[in-house]
């Protein structure tokens, strides 16, 4: 990626509690693989302005890409946890960029604190109700800047003044003649233009999306099984560890005999933690052990139990491509040790189920 141009402006961002810090956002175009317009937007404390403006140190908090297909991709470090970030952040960009909400999608940024920090927290963290507070200004700025560049690109194509053009619904319209060019058609040309400075953001009375209740963009994939959660991620060479934690709060691991566990094919490692054991296996698939292969362990507790004995359950599932087994052996745990106990009954199931 090559930095082409930049602009910046100072803003006062009010943080919760009334304190205020000066921040400066910097928007730069970046040569996008596969064409289109790619803007990186960086927010820094005032003290870091020099660093932010230095090409080598330009570390965007987020990227906005307008592809040759007209799709708008917002690449942000924030994660969707049900709080709606994958809908609210697209609303910010769609508002300023004058596209429909369904034209925007989000790509999760890879893990990298330096490149993708939360502007308010300084780390790649989602939490503390900071997603909107932290990204409002930079994402809006990126959207407004991109819109201005697309307007310029259209005006240059038609050889008219940009003031006679409007952005609407993912198109630039030349008002006097009604001519239209889509963002898809303009993205490459816009990427060649210098980045304008201090593009004004919309006034609240001009909002058409912000302040409305939008349907969640992540909804469809969550009712058809396509949404990818942490447990669904597969990485080449990935190994999966199962944790057997002490079932009593405050319990400590006393000893482990991992001989049998280590003898199971594909078990790579048995790790002793202060209050737990983990064992990792190679291969695609779930964490595993067999009932005979679970490390024998003694977990002691100095903590009082709730009603004499605290019963807990561990379902230790086992699988590999070559072999596998399932164990559902609950524990009866007493202070000072553990031993297997009776099998737990499952929850009552409705009659039409099983």
């Amino acid at each position, binding site marked *: 990626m090559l930095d082409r141009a930049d602009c910046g402006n100072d803003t006062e961002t009010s943080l919760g509690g009334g304190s205020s810090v000066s921040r400066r956002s910097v928007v730069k175009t970046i040569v996008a693989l596969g064409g289109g317009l790619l803007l990186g937007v960086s927010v820094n404390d005032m003290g870091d302005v020099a660093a932010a403006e230095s090409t080598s140190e330009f570390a965007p908090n987020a990227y906005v890409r307008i592809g040759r297909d007209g799709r708008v991709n917002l690449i942000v470090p924030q994660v969707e946890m049900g709080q709606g970030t994958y809908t609210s952040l697209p609303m910010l960009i769609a508002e300023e960029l004058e596209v429909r909400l369904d034209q925007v999608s989000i790509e999760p940024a890879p893990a990298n604190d330096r490149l993708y920090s939360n502007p308010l927290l300084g780390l790649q963290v989602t939490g503390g109700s900071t997603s909107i507070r932290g990204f409002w200004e930079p994402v809006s700025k990126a959207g407004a800047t991109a819109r201005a560049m697309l307007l310029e690109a259209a005006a240059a194509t038609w050889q008219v003044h940009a003031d006679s053009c409007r952005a609407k619904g993912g198109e630039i319209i030349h008002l006097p003649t009604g001519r239209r060019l889509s963002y898809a058609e303009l993205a490459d040309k816009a990427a060649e233009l210098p980045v304008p400075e201090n593009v004004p953001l919309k006034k609240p009375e001009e909002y058409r999306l912000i302040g409305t209740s939008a*349907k969640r963009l992540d909804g469809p994939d*969550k009712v*058809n099984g396509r949404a990818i959660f942490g447990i*669904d991620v597969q990485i080449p060479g990935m190994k999966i560890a199962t944790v057997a934690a002490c079932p009593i709060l405050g319990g400590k691991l006393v000893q482990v005999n991992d001989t049998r566990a280590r003898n199971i094919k594909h078990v790579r490692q048995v790790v002793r933690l202060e209050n737990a054991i983990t064992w990792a296996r190679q291969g695609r698939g*779930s964490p595993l052990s067999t009932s005979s292969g679970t490390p024998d362990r003694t977990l002691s507790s100095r903590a009082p139990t709730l009603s004499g004995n605290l019963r807990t359950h561990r379902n230790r599932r086992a*699988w590999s491509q070559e072999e*596998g087994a399932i164990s559902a052996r609950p524990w009866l745990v007493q202070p000072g040790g553990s031993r297997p106990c009776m099998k*737990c009954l*499952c929850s009552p199931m409705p009659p*039409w189920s099983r």
Partner: protein
Amino acid sequence: MAYRLKINGLDRVVDVDGDIPLLWVLRDVLGLTGTKFGCGMALCGACTIHLNGTAIRSCITPIDSVGAAAITTIEAIGDIPAGREIQRAWLDLDVPQCGYCQSGQVMSASALLAGNANPSDEEIDNAMSGIFAAAEPIRESGQRSSWRRKPLPPERSGVEHAGSS
């Protein structure tokens, strides 16, 4: 050992031990990760799938007990009318938040609706009570009424609007 399974209308052969739960065959062998692991003990319902149209917990269903039964997972639930209805209702009401439990929710509700086009509130509660969900209040607030294919009686239509607004 090789097992021939009928999954989402396709014949699939898997070579695994017989006591592996169906859940892990779906997720790890066949890559159908829409079905979720939650508790592994049939307590939470995240792993719910259909076996011959009946909602079951795949996490405690050994693969050797499946036989020739037709398996339907969340990936294909939109292919049956009740599944489509539920998906539509879920999106109309913007049900999913985190969404982790939603596969199980949709599968449980679809099985109910496939066998009972107009379930009572009690039947819905019974059907869905096996699902642990952080977003439980949403169900209470109006999902139930929107499931029914038939129009609601006039005196109850306000409930639906309250839930879907």
